[in-house]
């Protein structure tokens, strides 16, 4: 019976977390349009539902009913596989994110879908598989724009993945564990114990690298709308296009969630007296604050040229993160003695 309740409870957690994530992804599109509009002195979607709140549903239905065009000469299997390869790694990363402190249901203790002791490595491994999806989409479309866009995107993603991975090594040194739950627990103690105060440089480089990872402005050369039509997903239509869109936003939510867990204390409330809100609400607030920052950046900065982008990733971010690791290791050594 133990195994039965375990399976049931895990399925329940998966359903809830996935449901929340997919709903967030859908409403992230709405939030981006609204926030960007307010920054640009206009209103954004207002017609569908009150204040445009049903807009994502209308968008989803529209994409669902669109014709599915496969270009002639495209490799059909890989063409169909690429969107899946983009979306699934983004969603699968949520399996190890601790969304709440310990609570128990049906005799099982919950709080995270599964607490892998190599949780962080698991997430980065799957993010790299996401890069495959991009290259395959660009190549399988049998089109110049897609190929160039796909190659650019792949180059950008693997360059900034290095910076991303290196910037969290500092956090690992401080919490001595790869498990995200242990990292959250190591930041126990309120606002002033969060990792962002001990690792400010790492936080900044993490945010910059994650903006580049998810192909967002100012690093969105691969999907530069006015230059490459739509980059690597030029030839996609209907539901497959929706998958790429979902994948981009799911990736954004995943990196924001990770930033909240690694640097901003995860599900912990900043001050003791704010404990009446449950843990997942705090995680949501922190994640959405970072997502607002993503949209804010999109509304402010012009696009970075591709060679400037690569120069920045390799010649600035990586040395800075390496220096951060050096300083953090020296600091930890001195602190422990």
């Amino acid at each position, binding site marked *: 019976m133990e195994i039965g309740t375990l399976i049931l409870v895990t399925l329940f957690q998966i359903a809830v977390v996935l449901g929340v994530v997919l709903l967030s992804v859908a409403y992230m599109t709405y939030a981006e349009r609204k926030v960007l*509009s*307010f*920054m*640009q*002195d*206009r*209103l954004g979607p207002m017609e569908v539902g009150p204040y445009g709140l049903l807009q994502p549903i209308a968008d989803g239905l529209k994409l669902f009913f669109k014709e599915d065009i496969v270009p002639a000469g495209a490799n059909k299997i890989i063409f169909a596989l690429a969107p899946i390869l983009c979306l699934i790694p983004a969603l699968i990363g949520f399996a190890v994110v601790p969304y709440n402190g310990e609570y128990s249901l049906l005799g099982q203790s919950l709080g995270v879908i599964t607490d892998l002791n190599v949780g962080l490595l698991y997430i980065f491994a799957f993010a790299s598989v996401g890069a495959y999806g991009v290259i395959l989409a660009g190549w399988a479309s049998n089109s110049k724009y897609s190929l160039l866009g796909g190659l650019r995107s792949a180059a950008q993603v693997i360059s900034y993945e290095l910076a991303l991975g290196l910037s969290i090594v500092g956090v690992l040194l401080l919490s001595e564990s790869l498990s995200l739950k242990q990292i959250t627990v190591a930041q126990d103690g309120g606002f002033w114990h969060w990792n962002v105060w001990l690792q400010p440089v790492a936080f900044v480089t993490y945010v910059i690298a994650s903006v580049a990872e998810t192909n967002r402005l100012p690093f969105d050369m691969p999907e530069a709308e006015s230059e490459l039509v739509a980059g690597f997903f030029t030839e996609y239509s209907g539901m497959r296009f929706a998958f790429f869109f979902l994948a981009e936003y799911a990736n954004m939510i995943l990196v924001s969630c990770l930033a909240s867990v690694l640097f901003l204390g995860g599900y912990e409330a900043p001050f003791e007296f704010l404990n009446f809100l449950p843990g997942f609400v705090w995680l949501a607030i922190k994640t959405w604050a970072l997502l607002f920052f993503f949209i*804010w950046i999109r509304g*402010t*900065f012009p696009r970075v040229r591709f060679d400037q982008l690569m120069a920045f990733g390799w010649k600035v971010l990586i040395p800075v993160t390496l220096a951060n690791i050096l300083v953090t290791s020296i600091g930890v050594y001195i602190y422990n003695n």
Partner: protein
Amino acid sequence: MGLIRTIFMTELVKGLKLVFTQMFKPYCTLQYPHVKHEIPDGYRGVMSLLRYEDGTERCVGCSLCEAACPSNCIKVVSDEVPGQPLVRYAKEYYLDISRCVFCGFCTEACPVDALAMTKVYELSVYDRAELMFDKEKLYALGEQFLEDGKAFLMAHHMDDGTLYPGEGLGDNRYHFPPVDESSGGHRPAVVGLTKEDTAVEEYAQP
């Protein structure tokens, strides 16, 4: 200071702050189908044919509007009013709104203030044949938007004094000179001048 600016790129923060404050300023969107613009009086909307106070059609079928139209979208077929051999009217009047450019030349050309432009600009239809306006449709528009049409003519100084009879309002149109009965039905060459005014002095020898 320069070093801090180079390392931390502080001008980025300035940009971010500006965009953030811009979020709370009022928007400038006009939410169209729920809120519409205030249309001024001289606005050149869709055409309409007007009538006199007693219901007689103003249009005399002179085809000056057809001649003036740069898009050739008006067609007039005129005929005698049955029972009054010297008075004419437009038996058929077709105006193709889908070709119209709303320039207003036809309303300027009309000598009897029959054509006026209303404030209507929402002309979408599902069947393109509905965009060929015939006489009934134009007179119906004129009846529905009578005040708008009159205001248009007043605003453009095209009125001839018969729009608001008794109110003594503007009379800006050229009037054909009245026929002089004493001269046997011939019109004077210029309004207001008589034979004495046009007499020339005898040439006198120095």
